[in-house]
C-alpha cells in the first residue's frame, strides 16, 4: 500500500487505463505538454504520445463534442474540463446528446465517455474557479455523476467510470487534490459506481456528504465524539444514481439526518436526499432533516474571510450535529 494524494490517485487511474485499453484517450485544455493546470495528466503525454493525450482549443463545447463523436466510434474518451465553472458551454452536448444517446437509439448506441472536472471552493478561486455544478447534472437520467472524497475511491471510481458504457461526469474536489491523502493498494481494484460508503458508523446522527464536505464531516464527527455524540458519516460517492438503500438504512438507525454540501442551498442536491428520507423513512425520523449548505448567493466570494463565511467547514458541521443531537 502506498500513501498518495487525491490527484496522484486520479493520475494513476488514467495511467493504468491508458495502458490497459488502447481505446482510452485524454482530451482537454493544457492536458498534454503542460500536464493539466492541476497536473492531473502530468507525464502521460510522454508515456502515451500526443495521439492519445492531446490539447484542445479553449472551447468546452468542442471538448465534449469530440468526446461524444469518438465514443460513438468505439473509443473511450476522458475529457477534462479545466474548471467545472467552464462546463456550461458543453451543457447542451452533455444533456441533450451524451445523456440521451442510449435511450434515443434504443440501446444501439452508447457514449462511453468520462468528463472530469475539478469543482468547489476553498482555494481562493473566486466566482469563476470555485463553483459546484453537481445539482445541474444530477437531474439528468442517462448521465452518471460521481464525486470521490479520498484517493482510494477516486482511483477505483475513475477506473470504473472509464469502463462504464455510458457517460459519467466525474467531479473532483480540487481543494482536496493535495490536501487529502490516503492509502492506495498496489494491485488493481475497482470501486463500483452506485453504492455509497458508510465511512464512519455511529448511532446518534447521520451525516450525508461527498467530496470535500465528506472530509470535513469526518473531522466534525471526530470533534463531537468526545462529547459523547456518535455520528454516522455516509459518503454518497455516486450522486446519480443515488444509493437510497444505504441512506435509508442509516436514517432508520439514527433517526436524525444532516446533509452537507458546499453548493447553494436552494435546489441543491441535499434537497433530493432530504426528500428521499422524508418520503421513505418518515416514521423513522426523530428530528427534522437538516441541510448545511452554501448560502444562496451567486458565487463563492474571493475575499478570504468571505470565502470562509460561504463554505461549510468542520466547525460549522460539528455545530449543526450538536444542534441536531440536542433536538
Amino acid at each position: 500500500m502506498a500513501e498518495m494524494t487525491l490527484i496522484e490517485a486520479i493520475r494513476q487511474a488514467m495511467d493504468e487505463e491508458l495502458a490497459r485499453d488502447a481505446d482510452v484517450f485524454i482530451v482537454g485544455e493544457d492536458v498534454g505538454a503542460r500536464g493539466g493546470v492541476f497536473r492531473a495528466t502530468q507525464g502521460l503525454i510522454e508515456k502515451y504520445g500526443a495521439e492519445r493525450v492531446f490539447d484542445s482549443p479553449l472551447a468546452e463545447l468542442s471538448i465534449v463534442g469530440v468526446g461524444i463523436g469518438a465514443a460513438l466510434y468505439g473509443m473511450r474518451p476522458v475529457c477534462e474540463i479545466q474548471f467545472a465553472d467552464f462546463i456550461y458551454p458543453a451543457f447542451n452536448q452533455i444533456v441533450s446528446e451524451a445523456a440521451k444517446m442510449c435511450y434515443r437509439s434504443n440501446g444501439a448506441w452508447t457514449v462511453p465517455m468520462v468528463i472530469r472536472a475539478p469543482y468547489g471552493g476553498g482555494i481562493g478561486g473566486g466566482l469563476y474557479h470555485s463553483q459546484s455544478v453537481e445539482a445541474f447534472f444530477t437531474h439528468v437520467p442517462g448521465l452518471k455523476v460521481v464525486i470521490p472524497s479520498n484517493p482510494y475511491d477516486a482511483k477505483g471510481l475513475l477506473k470504473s467510470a472509464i469502463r462504464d458504457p455510458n457517460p459519467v461526469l466525474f467531479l473532483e474536489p480540487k481543494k482536496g487534490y493535495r490536501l487529502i491523502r490516503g492509502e492506495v493498494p498496489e494491485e488493481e481494484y475497482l470501486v463500483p459506481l452506485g453504492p455509497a460508503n458508510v465511512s464512519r458508523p455511529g448511532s446518534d446522527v447521520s451525516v450525508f456528504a461527498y467530496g470535500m464536505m465528506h472530509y470535513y464531516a469526518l473531522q466534525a464527527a471526530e470533534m463531537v465524539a468526545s462529547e459523547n455524540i456518535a455520528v454516522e458519516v455516509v459518503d454518497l460517492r455516486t450522486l446519480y444514481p443515488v444509493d437510497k438503500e444505504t441512506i435509508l438504512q442509516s436514517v432508520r438507525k439514527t433517526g436524525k439526518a444532516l446533509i452537507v454540501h458546499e453548493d447553494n442551498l436552494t435546489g441543491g442536491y441535499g434537497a433530493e436526499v432530504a426528500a428521499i428520507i422524508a418520503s421513505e423513512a418518515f416514521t423513522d425520523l426523530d428530528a427534522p432533516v437538516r441541510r448545511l449548505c452554501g448560502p444562496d448567493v451567486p458565487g463563492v466570494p474571493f475575499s478570504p474571510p468571505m470565502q470562509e463565511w460561504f463554505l461549510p467547514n468542520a466547525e460549522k458541521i460539528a455545530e449543526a450535529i450538536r444542534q441536531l443531537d440536542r433536538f
Partner: protein
Amino acid sequence: MATKVIMPQLGESVVEGTVMKWLVKEGDDVEELQPILEVNTDKVNTEIPSPAGGKILKIVVAENATVKAGTVLAWIGEAGERLPDSEMPPRGLAAEKPQEAVSGQPRALTQEREGDVGFVSPVVARMAQEYAIDLHLVKGTGERGRITKKDVLKYLAALEKERGAAAEPAAWETPGEGDLFRPTEMVFRTQPAPPPQSEAQQQPLAAASAGGDTLVPLSIVRKRIAEHMVNSVRTSPHVTTVMEADLKRVVAHREANKPDFSAEGVHLTFTAYFACAVSQALKDFRMVNSSWSEQGIVLHRAVNLGIAVALGEEGLIVPVIKNSDSLSLLGMARAINDLAHRARQHQLQPDDVKGGTFSITNHGMSGSLFATPIINQPQCAILGVGAIKKRVIVTEDDALAIRPMVYLSLTFDHRILDGEVADGFLARVVEILEHWH
C-alpha cells in the same frame, strides 16, 4: 395519572382486534399484568395483561367491538380520578382514529394542556404505537422536554427489566406469528431471571437426581426454545430429505469476489450463496414458500428468508431477510452481515424476526455433516446446511476428483409437501449452487 389500556398491535400485519370478553368490570381493582380482557385477531385469541395496577375507571370499548391497534380500550387509575378531557371515549369504533399520542400524528408544540406529552416525532409516534406505550410515562430529555427516540428505547429497556423479573410475556407477543422468539432486545438486555428459590425446591426434578447434580434454572429464551420446538414437532409431520452439492464453482466465485466485497465493507460468506440459491428456488417452487391452514395452503407472495444465528449460551435467533429473492449476492451478503451483527449485539428490532416464510440453519458451522432441523412454524420447510468438506467424488466421465462437497438436508411439513416436490425443490437448490456463475 390514569393509565390507558390500549389495543396492542398483535403482529406486523394485524392492524385491528376484537374485544371478545372483558374479564373485569368498571370499579374492579386490578393488579399490574393481571389478565383483564380477551382480544381476538384474525389469527388468535389473546389475553391482555393490565399495564398498571389500580381501579378500572372506565371501559371504553364494549365486547364484540373491533377497533384499530392503538385505540384506548379502558382507563385504570385511582378511585375518583378524573379522566383527561382530551381522552374521551371514541365515538366510532373500527373507523375511529387511534388516540393522538399513538396515531403517528404529532401534537402541537405547545405544552398548554395538562398531561400533554409535547411534540411527538414520527419515530416516537410509531414506537409508541408498536409497543403500546403511554407516552405520559416516558421522561423526555430532548429540547423543551421533548420525548426522543432514545428516551423511548430507555423506557422500553426499563420496562422489560421489570417484566423480565416477573417472567411475563409482553402483551403484544402471541403464538402463531411464526416468530421463534420474542424480539431480542426485549429478552437479552436483562439477565434471565432465576425462578424463586422456593418454587425450585418444591418441584421434584423430572430426572432422578443423584448427589452432586445441579439444577440450571430455565432462562426465558430456553423456555421459548423448548415451547417452540415441542409445538413444531407436534404440529407438523416432519420428513427430512438429504442431497449433496458440489461447491466447486461457489468456492471459486467466493475466492474471486471476496476482495471486491471486502472493499464494499461486506464479508462474503457461504451462507449468502445458500440464501441466494434458496430464494431463487423458492420462486420456482412456490409450494415450499407456504403455510398450512385448515382453510387451505397459504402460498406466500413474498420470499422472506429466516437465517438462524447462534448466540452461544443465550440460544439462537432467526432474523428475517425480507424479500430476499430481490437481493443480489452483494445485497444478500450485506443483509446477512447486518442481521447477524445486530443479532449478536442484541440490537434486532421486533420486525427483524417476523414474517419469515422459510428458514436456513447453517449447522455445518459447528462441524455437523448433516442434521434434521425442526421447522420454524408456521413455515413449511427448513434447510440445514452441513459442513463443507473436500471429498473424492466420481465425476460424470468416471474420473476421480477432489471437490468441496456439502450435504443439504431439507426438513418439510408432510401435510403440505410430498417427497417429489420437496426433492424437486432441493434439487433446484443444488443445481443453482453447482452452476453458479
